[in-house]
């Protein structure tokens, strides 16, 4: 039997996922709103850029982020010199990397949500004298709760599940960058299959419960509001 189970990797994963989801929500809200309403010819370019992390191998994304954030790049040097923040092999670096990695999982559900709203309802709010911001928070978002929930949960779950990017940008510093997925990888490497089993089972159960709650909420919402 291995020495007592260490749950720090899970706490770290959830902390990372929560912070990432909140930051991404703030970033994605204006971006998704813009994409849902623009008629600009640049829209496909922005959409393709946003969707890149879905198809890009995590190692490629991780490599570029590592390259951009390291002390050898202007960005990394700037943050370290002026703010004293080290962006690689640190928790902050993981947050930055996760924001790139999970961006499409926040933007796309929000954009779909905005696009499926009745356009006239938004216009009625403008005619009522409400600003875009008031319309967004008082009319648009309350009428797309399933999309909102999907965006949050899927971003959260996707961030918890990331492995390649985290390993490349963060490494495996206990209590700092060693998240659950990396910890499982290490347990298998050192052939501690018992711990790997327990960790994996916990991930499996949490992921299932999270997804189940999304689908249950959406089913309930559909019945109640016929959306």
């Amino acid at each position, binding site marked *: 039997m291995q020495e007592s189970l260490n749950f720090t990797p899970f706490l770290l994963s959830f902390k990372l996922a929560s912070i990432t989801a909140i930051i991404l929500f703030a970033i994605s809200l204006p971006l998704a709103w813009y994409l849902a309403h623009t008629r600009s010819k640049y829209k496909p370019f922005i959409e393709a850029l946003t969707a890149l992390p879905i198809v890009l191998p995590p190692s490629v994304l991780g490599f570029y982020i590592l390259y951009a954030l390291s002390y050898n790049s202007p960005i990394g040097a700037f943050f370290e010199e002026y703010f004293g923040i080290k962006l690689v092999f640190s928790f902050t670096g993981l947050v930055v990397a996760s924001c790139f990695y999970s961006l499409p999982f926040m933007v796309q559900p929000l954009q779909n949500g905005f696009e499926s709203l*009745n356009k*006239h*309802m938004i216009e*009625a709010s*403008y*005619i009522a*004298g409400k600003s875009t911001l008031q319309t967004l928070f008082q009319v648009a978002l309350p009428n797309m709760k399933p999309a909102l929930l999907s965006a949050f949960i899927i971003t959260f779950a996707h961030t918890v599940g990331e492995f390649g990017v985290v390993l490349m940008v963060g490494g495996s510093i206990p209590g700092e960058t060693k998240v659950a997925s990396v910890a499982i990888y290490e347990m298998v490497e050192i052939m501690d299959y018992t711990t790997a089993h327990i960790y994996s089972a916990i991930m499996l159960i949490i992921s299932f419960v999270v997804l189940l709650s999304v689908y249950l909420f959406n089913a309930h919402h559909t019945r109640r509001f016929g959306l």
Partner: protein
Amino acid sequence: MIDINITKALHGAHGAMELHLNTTIQQGEFVALTGKSGSGKTTLLRILAGLEKAEGKLLVEETLWLDAQYICPPQQREIGFVFQDYALFENMTIEQNLLFVAKDKTLAQHLLEVTELSSMKNRYPKALSGGQKQRVALCRALMKKPKLLLLDEPFSALDGAMREKLQKELLTLHKEFHTTTIMVTHNKSEMYQLASRLIVLENGKVVQDATPQELLFAQEKDKLKLHGKVVEIVNKQEHYSAIIALGQQLVEITLTHQEAQNLTPSQEIILQAGTLHLNLNESDTIF
């Protein structure tokens, strides 16, 4: 007074066309806007509301709403708009829908009473019928006591009695708030009862512009026209007769041999009657 001189290229159901309107609408006027679907009626309302761009100029009581450099956002136009699909805020109750526009509880209550919706003010739009939603949409549009009220077929989902009641009420409120109203409608009695001016659009252009009285009675003043459909032609030896469906009613009309030759069953026809005499019979039962 509203000075309208606008042009907009449209890609309608019948290909490309140009919406063009150059007219002046007086303060307090009630304009009915009619024309076939795809003639640009709704687009015109949307341009007036600031929901769509157009070329030209819009001047409302010395306030500029639109010209080549400037477009006044809908928020600053002091208008009311009733959308054809009602577009109620689904996340708010009926009362909240009204109060979202203006925090005037007294006015909200008054409007809900007039439209017989008071008992439903705490319900959500999903729980209402089409006609009820339409009434809420009308109330909501009036909450700002708008200078310009734009209505896109506001009574289409209502039944006869409610329709009439709301028409009267709209007219009262139109006068009370001294609103200028532009209403898209296909209903002739509505045009006649409500509007002081009737504009007919065809392919984006104004083809007629006068009072409803002048336009609706222009050609055939005291003629009754009924649209019907031939059900059957019956040969009755010395003459023919046609069974014709007029809405829910069937009538039989005597025909000459030649007339019968030209008719076929399921053909659409127009029955026209000359001078009519009133023949009231109170004991008539309607089946």
